[in-house]
């Protein structure tokens, strides 16, 4: 009896190309995934503005940013909590103090009151927010030393 007839037949599919494809897909998703959107609240419906440009300056991406979401009732949504009126102002005051402490301890730098804080305040306000609460938040930021602001809008183009 020949040896070949006694061996049982093995059907082994070649999994290597499949693995290659899966790794390519994983690479794609790893590159496009964005964990930095955690501070962005999906409840906020941004207004549309054609000339609002996406952030393209790499230097601005490295800046310290404070993201403030304002809902349609004018309440501040921050770190998963809702702050209204005076609470929002207190929270902004606290964040400004925190930014000052960070500058002092981490960089050994004291903030010049005339220059203001280097932190950029990103305001994501809902399209239906009345002007008064939005203005109160901006005023609270200015009073506490924030000078740089980004007003977010959907790019309408």
């Amino acid at each position, binding site marked *: 009896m020949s040896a070949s007839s006694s061996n049982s037949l093995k059907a082994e599919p070649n*999994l*290597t190309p*499949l*693995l290659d494809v*899966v*790794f390519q*897909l*994983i690479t794609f*998703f*790893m590159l*496009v*995934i*964005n964990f930095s*959107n955690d501070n*962005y609240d999906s409840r906020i419906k*941004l*207004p*549309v*503005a*054609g*000339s*609002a*440009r*996406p*952030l393209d300056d790499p230097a*601005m991406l490295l800046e310290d940013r404070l993201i403030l979401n*304002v809902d349609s009732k004018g309440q501040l949504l921050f770190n998963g909590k809702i702050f209204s009126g005076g609470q929002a102002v207190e929270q902004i005051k606290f964040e400004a103090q925190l930014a000052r402490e960070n500058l002092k301890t981490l960089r050994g730098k004291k903030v010049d009151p005339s220059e203001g804080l280097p932190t950029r305040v*990103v305001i994501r*306000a*809902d*399209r*239906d*927010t*009345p*002007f*008064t609460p*939005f*203005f109160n938040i*901006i*005023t609270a930021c*200015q*009073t506490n030393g924030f*000078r*740089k*602001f*980004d*007003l*977010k*809008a*959907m*790019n309408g183009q």
Partner: protein
Amino acid sequence: MKRKPQEDVEIPITPMLDMAFQLLTFFILTYHPSPTEGQFSMNLLPAQPVINMNAPAADSAASNSELPAGLKTLPTTLLAADDGMLAKVTLGENQIEGMEAFTKELTTILKDPTLPFDQTIIKVDSRLKYSELMKVINVFSELKVNKISFAEMGADEGTPP
């Protein structure tokens, strides 16, 4: 001479494939393609009077950059309707209705070489919706006016006498 049978070393690929599929599932489930957000970047200083009454009179020979800030600031007032939409815009002393007319008027003002305006203070009705304000900021931004400051309109302001 007798040859040794060749030994095949097989690396088990199946567990690696399982793990790769698990990773793929994780990335597919956590992937939320976010729409492109734009922004208007601005430096907003604390509120201060734009017209300094004690400022020296502008010299006609002086360049535009030497003029006091108050003279270079175009006052803009936004009045809201009851539903929070934009009802009327006052540009300087001109009352305008509608976004198209506002864009046209603003373009005319900014293209006029005799007028020194390069910044604006927008006085806004407290009821005005943010989306309407952004439309106005958008027009200023398109016309390269990036020095913008905000003020809130008083309760008795903007109503006809």
